[in-house]
Every structure is written in structure tokens, then in C-alpha cells.
């Protein structure tokens, strides 16, 4: 009988423990906002890449010029700038009275020191045209600095506005060697936030930079918790462990939709941030044929995709770039959803259906193609399935190939695909940086365009647009390049991705950033908590 009682007593003990734990949730103190990210933010070296997280680098470090909405270049650490007529020299007038968070003054010498270490490690930043273009940085006086380029490069200011690598570390935080590739002493920038604590696998804490030159942020502290799983993040938000969900892929679309229907939460979607596309390989398989590519464009019901897969969280795309992208408001005629048009195109091209088979054939060959995607990417998988069903209606068999991430990127790299997903990079890289990458064979874009008879001319036009000094000519070149690719139906734009934001009513104001890579915490105004 005693044995019988024993387990019950253990159960009672457990119950008692759970009752003891019944205490109200410890909410963060006022002035503190808790956000989450999938990993720690890293050592925050402004001139290095992984494991430094871009959003956190943008919190601590600032550029000379900032990328604004619609691609407008705004002053930041440089109050003004001028350039020579040949656009090879830029003179920046630095903002006076700016200090790094450790009190070191921000001046022309600090700019030069940062540029010099970047140029010394140009190999590491070779992906960025700017790193190759800077010839030298000259200090003119304490608050004036001149950057000399090897040749004219129109997106110079856009590249300077990127989150990395052209941002400024305090000279006092440089290593003894002066080479930031070896690491930094501490993350000291001029930005509105200072990284004050990192707990591995748990969280990173940022505090307001009291020496910040700009408007003083309303928040005093930001804690970034490490939450790798989107479902855990959603639950953490519901229980008040985190205050804000912001960005692309932070939570599933289903969860966002659920939060959208909850009046206690404020949900918002950003302006279009990047384009979600499928590229059609003009150099391989049946997609070599223009008629097939055009038929595919007409056959995909994008509206149904937006409704069914994206739950109206993305915007239907008819052109490669959204019209809010600089130089891309071109009014290109969209390929309307029309199965009859798609069928007619295939019929005219000689791809016929028979009563027996649902797949079209020509000369005994079936109209079959592969669509490659990342196997564990739920969104890509859903789109692929809808795409497969849509194309089946016009007699095209689509074989879905869901693979591991590396294998997928290898296909992009080597052009081993008929159809593959390929998103644009979004602002500030769109359109120029993304377009510039089309000239490299290691990109899916290059491979997809490789079968076009005018590929050489496209590449030459891209080269020209990057160095063009004439605004009208540049616009004309963009029209020529994008118009050609649109007519050649190499890209199947599906949607424009958006950043998703969810917060409670205690965050009364928050703006969306101009790019998906930065989070404007400094614009957050927090109401008094009312739990």
C-alpha cells in the first residue's frame, strides 16, 4: 500500500512545484524592446561578413551617405558632397561634432583609416565593384575628405550606403596592425546603438549611444534574443517574451495571418523589397524556345498564388523589378494570365497534344522540364506545386526537383536547370548590383540568359550603364536591358516580397526601413506598458 502511495506523493510534489512556479511573467522594463534573431549578432566588425549580422552592423555603424526610400541618397556622416564633371572624384564634407561611442572624434582621418584597410583587403570585398574602383582617399582638412576612383562609376554613392563594408569603426578600436581583417578591439561606431553585452546562444544587448549626433532614440535598450525557430519566435511573441517581429522569414505566413486577425496586435507589410522570380533557362532544354517561355508566362495564375500561398502578404509581380526601384518604372506590358494564349503559342510552335496523352509532343519528344528548388523551403515547394499544376493545364510536364541548399546553388552556379528560383537582391542592390552580377557565369541569371542571341549586347549595355554619366542615357540603357529581357521572357516574376512587422499596441510608432537589411529601431516610440 505504501508503494501505491509513493508515486502519488511524487505526482503531488510535481504539482506543488508547478504551482510554485505560477507567478506572473516578468516583463521587460519600460524603455526596453526585446527583438529576436536566429543567431547572436557576432563581433560586429563593420568590415567583415559572417557571422556579423547586417541589421546589427547597421545599428552600430553608419555610412557617409544613407539609402532612402525609392533609392534617394541622403546625407548621413557626410553633410554634403560634390563631384568632378568626370565623376572620378568625390569630395565629402563631414558632419561636424560627430563622435564615436567611445568619445573619439569622427573626422577625415578616421574615414581614410577605414578606407585604407578596406582597400588593403580589396580581395575580400571583390564582389563589390566599389572596392575595386577606389584608387585613394585623400584628407583635405579635418572635416573634408576626397575619394578618387579609377574610373567613373555611377552607383558609387549607392554602394557607399551599403551596410558593409564601407562603414566607419573608431580608430581606437582598430587592431595594432591596423588591419581589421584580423579582428577589432571592440564594436565602436557612430550609430545610435552600442553593443554592450553578448551572451552566447542567449541574447545580445544594445544600449542607446548617448553621444549619437542624430535624434535621441526613444528606447534606452534593445535586447536581441537568439531564437532560431520561427514557431518558437511566434510563441515567444504571444507570451510577451519578445516585443517585435520584423523582417523577412521571421515567422511563417500562416502565423502572420493569424496575428493579423488578432486585434491586440498591430501587423504591417512593407513596400516591395525584392522580386521573387523563376528564371527560364534560354540555354538549355525546351525553354531554349521563346514560344515555350512566353507560353509559361501566360500560364501561371499569379493571383491564385498570391492568395493561396502567400495569403496576400506579397504583391503580384508583372515585371522583374517593382516600379518603386530606381530606373524601373518602365510600364512594360504584362503577360496576362491566359491559358488560351499559352496554348496557341505552343500550337504554333509545333507542340501538339493528342487525345491519348496530356503532355504535348513534337517530333516524338515530350514537352518536359525540371523546376529546381530547395527541398525544405516550404514556400518554394508550394509555388512549385502550383506551378506544376498550372503548366499541366497547357500540356507541359514539370518535374519537381527539391534538393539540398548546396546542391540547389550548385545548379544555379553551373546552369544545370531548366527552371529555377532566383530572387532579386532588393534595395540598395537593385537594380545596378544585381544587374551587374548577370555578367558573371556563376550566376543563375547569366546561365538563364546564355541562350539569348543578344546576350553579348545585354552584357555590354550593363557595363555601359554602370559607368554612364548621363542620366538620360542611363535611363535609356535600363529600358533597353529590361525591355529586352521582358520580351525574351527569361524571368517569370511571381511576386514582390515584403517585410512583415508585428508588434503590440505599446509600440506606437515604427517606420519600415528603406531596405530589408536594416531595422530602424531608433524610430520606435514606445508607450507606457499597460500589463
Amino acid at each position, binding site marked *: 500500500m505504501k508503494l501505491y502511495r509513493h*508515486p502519488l506523493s*511524487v505526482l503531488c510534489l510535481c504539482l506543488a512545484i508547478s504551482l510554485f512556479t505560477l507567478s506572473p511573467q516578468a516583463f521587460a522594463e519600460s524603455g526596453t524592446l526585446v527583438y529576436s534573431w536566429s543567431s547572436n549578432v557576432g563581433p560586429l566588425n563593420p568590415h567583415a561578413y559572417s557571422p556579423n549580422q547586417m541589421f546589427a552592423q547597421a545599428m552600430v555603424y553608419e555610412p557617409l551617405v544613407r539609402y532612402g526610400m525609392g533609392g534617394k541618397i541622403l546625407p548621413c556622416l557626410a553633410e554634403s558632397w560634390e563631384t568632378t564633371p568626370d565623376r572620378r572624384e568625390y569630395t565629402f564634407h563631414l558632419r561636424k561634432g560627430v563622435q564615436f561611442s567611445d568619445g573619439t572624434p569622427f573626422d577625415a582621418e578616421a574615414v581614410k583609416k577605414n578606407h585604407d584597410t578596406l582597400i588593403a583587403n580589396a580581395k575580400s570585398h571583390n564582389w563589390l565593384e566599389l572596392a575595386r574602383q577606389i584608387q585613394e582617399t585623400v584628407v583635405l582638412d579635418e572635416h573634408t575628405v576626397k575619394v578618387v576612383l579609377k574610373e567613373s562609376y555611377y552607383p558609387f554613392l549607392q554602394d557607399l550606403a551599403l551596410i558593409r563594408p564601407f562603414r566607419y569603426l573608431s580608430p581606437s578600436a582598430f587592431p595594432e596592425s591596423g588591419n581589421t581583417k584580423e579582428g577589432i578591439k571592440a564594436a565602436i561606431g557612430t550609430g545610435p546603438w552600442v553593443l554592450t553585452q553578448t551572451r552566447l546562444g542567449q541574447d545580445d544587448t544594445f544600449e542607446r549611444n548617448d553621444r549619437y549626433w542624430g535624434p535621441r532614440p526613444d528606447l534606452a535598450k534593445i535586447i536581441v534574443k537568439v531564437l532560431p525557430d520561427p514557431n*518558437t519566435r511566434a510563441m515567444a511573441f504571444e507570451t510577451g517574451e519578445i516585443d517585435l517581429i520584423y523582417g523577412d522569414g521571421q515567422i511563417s505566413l500562416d502565423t502572420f495571418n493569424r496575428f493579423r486577425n488578432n486585434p491586440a496586435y498591430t501587423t504591417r507589410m512593407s513596400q516591395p523589397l525584392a522580386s521573387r522570380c523563376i528564371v527560364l533557362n534560354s540555354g538549355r532544354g525546351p525553354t531554349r524556345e521563346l514560344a515555350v517561355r512566353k507560353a509559361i508566362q501566360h500560364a501561371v495564375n499569379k493571383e491564385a498564388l498570391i492568395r493561396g500561398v502567400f495569403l496576400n502578404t506579397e504583391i503580384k509581380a508583372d515585371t522583374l523589378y517593382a516600379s518603386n526601384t530606381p530606373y524601373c518604372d518602365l510600364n512594360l506590358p504584362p503577360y496576362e494570365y491566359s491559358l488560351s494564349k499559352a496554348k496557341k503559342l505552343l500550337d504554333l510552335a509545333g507542340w501538339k497534344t493528342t487525345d491519348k496523352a496530356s503532355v504535348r509532343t513534337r517530333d516524338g519528344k515530350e514537352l518536359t522540364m525540371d523546376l529546381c528548388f530547395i527541398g525544405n523551403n516550404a514556400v518554394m515547394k508550394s509555388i512549385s506545386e502550383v506551378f506544376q499544376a498550372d503548366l499541366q493545364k497547357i500540356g507541359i510536364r514539370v518535374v519537381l526537383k527539391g534538393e539540398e541548399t548546396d546542391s540547389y546553388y550548385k545548379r544555379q552556379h553551373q546552369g544545370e536547370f531548366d527552371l529555377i528560383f532566383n530572387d532579386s537582391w532588393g534595395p540598395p542592390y537593385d537594380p545596378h548590383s544585381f544587374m551587374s552580377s548577370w555578367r558573371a557565369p*556563376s550566376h543563375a541569371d547569366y546561365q538563364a540568359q546564355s541562350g539569348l542571341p543578344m546576350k553579348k549586347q545585354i552584357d555590354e549595355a550593363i557595363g555601359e550603364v554602370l559607368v554612364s554619366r548621363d542620366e538620360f542615357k542611363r535611363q535609356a540603357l535600363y529600358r533597353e536591358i529590361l525591355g529586352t529581357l521582358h520580351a525574351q521572357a527569361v524571368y517569370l516574376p511571381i511576386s514582390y516580397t515584403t517585410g512583415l512587422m508585428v508588434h503590440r499596441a505599446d509600440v506606437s510608432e515604427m517606420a519600415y526601413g528603406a531596405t530589408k537589411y536594416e531595422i530602424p529601431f531608433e524610430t520606435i516610440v514606445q508607450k507606457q506598458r499597460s500589463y
Partner: protein
Amino acid sequence: MIKFIARRLLLLIPLLFVISVLIFVILRLGENDPAMSYLRLSQIPATDEALALAREELGLNRPLVVQYSDWAWKVLHLDFGRSYVTGAPVSDRLLFYLPNTLYLGTVSLGIVLVLSFPLGILSALKKDRWPDHLTRAIAFAGVSTPSFWLGFLLVYVFAVKLKWLPPMGMGGPRHVIMPAFTLAFMSLCINMRLIRSSMLEQMNTRSVLYARSRGVKEKWITGYHVLKNSMIPVVTAMGMHIGEMLGGAVVVEIIFAWPGVGRYAVSAIYNRDFPVMQCFILMMTLLFVLCNLAVDILYAWLDPRIRYGTGAEQ
């Protein structure tokens, strides 16, 4: 006994060597390309030039044999290399996260021991009555419930709805309850069933019958003879449960954002961070083998037939 332990420990050396070669080769057999992953994480376009530079920096452009021998030599000096992603020494990071996983594992093991014994014994003693039916139903549910599902269910009920417990993270004792229970639940149920069946088996042995005929008290028979003899398969299973818990911690640590080695290893798998994966697998192998060794020693202590190296016939 000392000879037995020494022999088992010596066997560890060739075992770890074979494992090290296997993991080194298997990781590199597939399409995995750490240089590509590094560039993807860095948001750098993977041009041929960038890939070549990344491979050079990560030391991946050397022949495989050179890479292995270099790594193995360093491992012999307890240097497991640097992470491809963070550049931090792997052993430092793993040793930083390991205590958190061991803490979680220990609490889970505690839950398994504290709950499975009384419930298993109760089930055996009340065979075919309601306490037995109840524990068997729990056991059935337990072995059929995936830990990720149970974890989210617990969070939903106890954190989101009731707000009794924190949903994630590591902090005070309240933080460990849900992850530890999630981790323990399956082992707890298996153990419970094992204790029940093992006890029922022992209750029908002739030694128990003779003890009863000698007039030994029923309480003493159950509490000593039956229970002690029932422990042998249970102890064996416990050795495996410890391994399962360390492995199962991978899922639980992600759900509950627990900063342990499991979560670190999963991010390494996603990022093709070979040095971290190699160190993790080696460490887990070592822990698993040591746990089994401890079980074997306990086994020998519990069963004199094993201790004296004689067969069951005697």
C-alpha cells in the same frame, strides 16, 4: 574489474579513430560545400573568384588526406580547429554549450528515474487494474509522441494559454521544466513499461516462489528480490536513454531556444560548418561509449554471474 575497464577504455582509441575517419569522409561525400555556405551566410555572390578565395581561407583547397591529417593532429592536441562560420575555436564553443546540455539531460534523467520507477512498479503490482491501464495508456501515448510536437503543445498550454512557465530560453529553474519534461517523456514511458514487464517476469521466477515458501515477507520479496533482479534490463536501457537524451536534445534545444550543444550542432549542419560537426560527433560518440561503459560496470555489479565471468547455467 579494473582489467575490464582498462580493456574497454583502450578499445576507445581505435573506435574514435575509425569514427573520425568516417565522419571526415562522409561529410565530404555529398554536395556540401562550406565555401558556398559561407558566402551565402555572408550575402556575398558566389562567383568563381569568391568561391576560390573562400576555399583558400577555409583551407578547403588542399588534398583531403592533408586536410584530415592536419585536423587529426590538432585533435590529438585537443584543438578541434576553428568554425568556418564564426572563426571561433570549436572546442571553446562546444565546452561553453556542453554544460547547458548536460544540465538539461541531467534534469531529464532525474524526471525519468523519479517517475518511471514508481509508475512502473505500480503498474506491475496492479496488473490489469486501473492504475496499470492508465500507465500503459500514458506509455503508449508517450512512445508515439514526437518530441517537437509535445514541446510545442506544452508551450502552447503552459506558456501561451496558462502563462505558468516561460516559453523559451535559459534562466531560473522554471525555464528547465518544459524542455526537460519534453526530453524525458519518451524515455520515461519506455522505462515505465520496461520496469513493469521486467518485474512481472521476475515475480514468476522460481526464486520468488521459494522465497514465498520460506515465509519471506511479501514486501521484502517485491522490494528486494524482484526489484533488484528487474533492474538489469532497465539499467541497460538507461544507458541508451542517456544517449537518446543527448541526441534528442537537438530538437528540444531548438524548440525551447536552449543554448546547448545540440542547437549549436544543428546550426553547424545548416551552415556546413564541418569542424563543429566533426567535434560534435566525436564528442557524442565518446559520451555515448562512456555511458555504455558505466552501464556495463553497473551491470556487472548488479549481476554476480557477469561479475564472476560465469555463464547463466551455473
